[in-house]
């Protein structure tokens, strides 16, 4: 297997030759992740997307919002590799900048969903009783709406914008994180380390934050990665319906909506932004699946 194993003559030698800290949980997980070709593809897509978002001004050849009516709907060419749209903007540059919107909204809504859902879920599972019943009935109400429908309703109430999109999506996903954290808290609260912490007089807040939370991070991270894929799709759906970032902000869903009427004359216009949405979602799905296989101890 490894060089160490080949050089070693006896099991004792193997143990002695083992470099310090070679086998850690994170190290093992990382190795398993990197052995999974699909996960690497996912990781690569995610990294490309993050680079696109961070360095959009350096990568994009043109301004994403500067219009030029002389370039009305031009097919892909060496100058404009993905063509130009109905007000002469470079589609490639807009897609690069679109990664910013997509990532910003998905990550912020994920953070909001976690910030609302995890504490509520932990409290629910930890204390049980009436608090538990109340919080769980509350999640029932939110879960009675399909996620996108709830987000649509919330955006309609706050008024469409990029910020309302992330707030609406964050509010729509908190119950999922609450359910997850509750289950984790229920499983953890009778473990010895929690009982021990309590016996030395740790307060509830400290037990929840310092002892239980670190132990439920793995499932939360896996779930969040998989959910980002879904949130990217929902964010673009909101933008497509005109309920996300407003024009001329280059959101992928918005680009799709505004060029939909060109499906006979310039089919590439509504095609490229969709490919970007698809790839972004695919990347997070593959990475999330890979993370789950690599980190989930129970599955091994």
């Amino acid at each position, binding site marked *: 297997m490894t060089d160490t194993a080949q050089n070693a003559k006896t099991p004792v030698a193997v143990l002695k030759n083992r470099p310090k800290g070679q086998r850690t949980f994170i190290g093992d997980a990382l190795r398993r992740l990197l052995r999974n070709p699909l996960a690497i593809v996912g990781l690569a897509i995610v990294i490309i997307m993050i680079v696109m978002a961070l360095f959009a001004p350096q990568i994009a050849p043109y301004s994403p919002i500067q219009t030029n009516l002389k370039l009305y709907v031009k097919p892909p060419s060496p100058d404009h590799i993905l063509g130009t749209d109905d007000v002469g903007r470079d589609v490639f540059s807009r897609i690069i900048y679109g990664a910013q919107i997509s990532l910003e909204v998905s990550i912020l809504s994920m953070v909001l969903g976690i910030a609302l859902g995890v504490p509520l879920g932990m409290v629910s599972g930890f204390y049980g009783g009436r608090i538990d019943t109340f919080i769980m009935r509350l999640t029932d109400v939110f879960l009675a709406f399909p996620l996108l429908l709830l987000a649509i309703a919330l955006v309609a109430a706050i008024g469409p914008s990029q910020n309302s999109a992330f707030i609406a999506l964050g509010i729509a996903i908190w119950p999922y994180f609450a359910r997850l954290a509750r289950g984790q808290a229920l499983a953890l609260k009778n473990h010895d380390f929690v009982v021990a912490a309590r016996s030395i007089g740790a307060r509830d807040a400290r037990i929840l934050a310092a002892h239980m939370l670190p132990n439920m991070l793995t499932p939360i991270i896996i779930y969040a990665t998989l959910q980002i894929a879904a949130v990217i799709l929902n964010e673009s759906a909101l933008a497509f319906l005109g309920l996300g970032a407003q024009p001329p902000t280059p959101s992928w869903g918005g680009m799709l909506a505004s060029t939909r009427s060109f499906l006979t004359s310039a089919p590439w216009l509504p095609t490229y932004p969709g490919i970007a949405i698809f*790839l972004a979602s695919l990347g997070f799905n593959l990475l999330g699946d890979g993370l789950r296989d690599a980190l989930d101890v129970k599955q091994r």
Partner: protein
Amino acid sequence: MAKYTLRRLLQFIPTLFGVYTFAFFLMRVLPGDAATYLVGFHGSASALAALHAKLHLDDPILVQYVSFLGNLVRGDLGNSYITGDPVLDIIGRALPATAQLMVVATIISVALGLPLGVISALRKDSLVDNLTRILVVLGASLPTFWLGIQLQIVFAVNLHWLPVSGVGLDAHIILPSIALAVATTALLARMTRSSLLDELNQDYIRTAHSKGLRERAVVWRHALRNAFLPVLTVWGLSLADLLTGALLVEVIFSWPGMGRLLVQSITTRDYPLLQANLIILAMTYAGANLIVDLLYTLVDPRIRYD
């Protein structure tokens, strides 16, 4: 069974109540109230005040809430700001169109997803299995509305096989329902595959084999029956995707269902219509989940839920 059904039905009531409450307060957050929209933003102050009184908008919010619930019980969700028709009539005309799309998409996804899942589990690592696994990954990441547009470009604009958009239980329904079915097909194929693979590794399957049963009998009579249980659950979960997917597909294909109505009610700020739309869709979705839960007990008699 009867006891469980009753308890599940009773649990449904607070959820519905929560949905109504949510929809009521959401509409109170919306910019501008009913009277402003009816009179118009430039209407006179006296007209506005008169309408305020008439619509009971000056009553305390709790009084308004109670009367909202009262109207709801009587099946009155108000009238559209735009057309003046009762919103429930408008929704009654749109709901069947959305249901048609969802039913056809479900038929497609069951007809394709289940066999694909079974074949790929039985012929693991075969061509069909690999294709299915690719479909599964793609299906979870494809934006439904983009898929709809691509189907329009390929099959309507370029090949002229099918109409670009429009309504009807004929060639018109094919593209929208395919666009809608892909994600659910992928999900069903994935669940069928993994749950059948799990079952095929169970002891009772080895027993069935060892007593000389033919492969077909083992798979169909033993493994598949048990494998369908998780599949049913997943189908219940995918109802949400099916419903919201339908809303988007309707916009793409100009299908006159709930989705188009929803978008229209937001853009024209027809709040009673929006509110009723939310309530009806949430009730439909929660009701469908309830039915799936109850079916679950029928399919698996082991489940007593006590």
